[in-house]
């Protein structure tokens, strides 16, 4: 078997080994490759920056532990930016592990360090089971759908933040960090269209193409796709974190994909001519 034959049909174990090296090396020895700010992350940053004071925001971690490598960094980054602002934040999730993921985020970002008081400036309503019907029910009547808060187990209606917030009609923005269903389309059907609540979505990279039509139609106001955008966002809020740490690995793994595709095609054409 000649070199060209090998290039045309490289054993997958070599591909796996190369991937492992290309991902692990920059994680152990950061290369500091440049990270240019793109329009998506800039638009996202500006959107949050321009949220008016006093706005009521639904902040929804709609993902489980499997989505954490890609979405956890933007979840943390957004908490830093949101807690700096004078807004009311209602945390709620329709993913079973979402509340536990947010618990982990709270261990890294303490709202009290931004002077935010629980029950006054923000509240965590935890997980509501039921998928799309639950999103709908929560939009119609928040307090009966989430009767108790997640952190203190007290009646939701007893908190100061909920005195003027009863349904989706009282909400100014949804921020959904998500990996799939329920997610954007359910929010659009049950909140954005009926109640005209704007929505912005942070998502895993593979979800972004499916969201393009909603972004263009204006139903989706901004999008932050994948770890690369998270890294750019971390630069914008001036808080280098997990995404910046991982972005070199993204560059290197993408370089490997391009190299392998080029080598594979060279091998393919060389062996085809020979045969």
């Amino acid at each position, binding site marked *: 078997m000649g070199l060209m034959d090998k290039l045309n049909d*490289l054993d*997958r174990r070599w*591909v*796996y080994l*190369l*991937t492992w090296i290309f991902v692990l090396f920059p994680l152990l020895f950061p290369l500091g*490759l*440049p*990270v*240019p700010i*793109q*329009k998506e992350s800039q638009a996202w940053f500006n959107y949050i920056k321009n949220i008016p004071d006093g706005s009521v925001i639904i902040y929804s971690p709609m993902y489980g*532990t*499997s*989505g*954490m*490598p*890609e979405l956890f960094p933007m979840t943390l980054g957004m908490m830093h930016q949101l807690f700096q602002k004078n807004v009311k934040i209602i945390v709620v999730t329709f993913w079973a*592990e979402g*509340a*536990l993921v947010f*618990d*982990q985020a709270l261990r890294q970002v303490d709202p009290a360090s931004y002077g935010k008081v629980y029950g006054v400036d923000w509240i965590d309503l935890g997980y*509501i*089971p*039921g*998928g799309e*019907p*639950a999103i709908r*029910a929560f939009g*119609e*009547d928040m307090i*009966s*759908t989430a009767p108790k808060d997640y952190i203190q*187990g007290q009646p939701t209606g007893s908190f100061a933040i909920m005195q003027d917030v009863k349904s989706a009609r009282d909400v100014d923005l949804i921020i959904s960090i998500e990996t799939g269903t329920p997610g954007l389309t359910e929010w659009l059907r049950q909140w954005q269209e009926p109640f005209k609540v704007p929505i912005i979505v942070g998502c895993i990279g593979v979800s*972004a*193409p*499916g969201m*393009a*039509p909603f972004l*263009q139609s204006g139903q989706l106001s901004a999008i932050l796709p*994948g770890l*690369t955008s998270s*890294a750019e966002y971390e630069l914008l809020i001036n808080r280098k974190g997990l995404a910046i740490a991982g*972005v070199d690995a*993204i*560059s*290197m*793994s*993408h*370089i*490997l*994909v*391009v190299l*392998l*595709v080029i080598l*594979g*095609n060279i091998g*393919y*054409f060389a062996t085809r001519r020979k045969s």
Partner: protein
Amino acid sequence: MSNILRRIEIPIFLTIVATVLQVVPYYLDIPIINTTANNINQWVLLIVAWATFIGPLSLIQVHGKAVQKRGSGWYYSILVLAAAVVMSIAGLPIPEVGLSQRNPVYNWLFTYGQTALSSTMYGIIAFFITSAAYRAFRAKNIESTLVLLAGVFMVMSNAPFFTASWPGFKTIGDWIFAVPNMATNRAVTIGAALGAIALAVRTLMGIERGYLRGGGD
């Protein structure tokens, strides 16, 4: 009496009532229908919450049988069952005796077990994607060459190394995202929506009975 309750018209009628109650408030503002629809929606949440118990029962059934039969890898099933039992007990919502999702045992297992394992499973995709890209992106004909070019440019537009080297990669990636990708996704979205509407109409008219134990009369 039991014969009457077994009649196919009853579930069809219930389906029609439930569907109409969810559709009408979307277009018309009739207070009594809105209230009824919201009440029925709350029932759905209760049903879904109860359905949660099917998960553990199914897990015990599948892995219990695997342990009983001593099939290949049966010892992994013991691990699954043990983890399920420990996490279920530690996470029971009885904070008075120290149990809840904030219980230290539950938190430790979730943070250092569940989170690490799930993230690893997700990370493994990188290996498969690299291997798949290497094998699939071959310029065998015009169609596959177009896929290859689109794929490679999208890869490059998403890697900061390439976009920092030449911003044109991002411009090309954005064009692929905003023009051919969006056109295709629109077609898929609209097609799926039309299909869903057709299915809903068939269900409402009692023609579609696939959800009724295979649709038998």
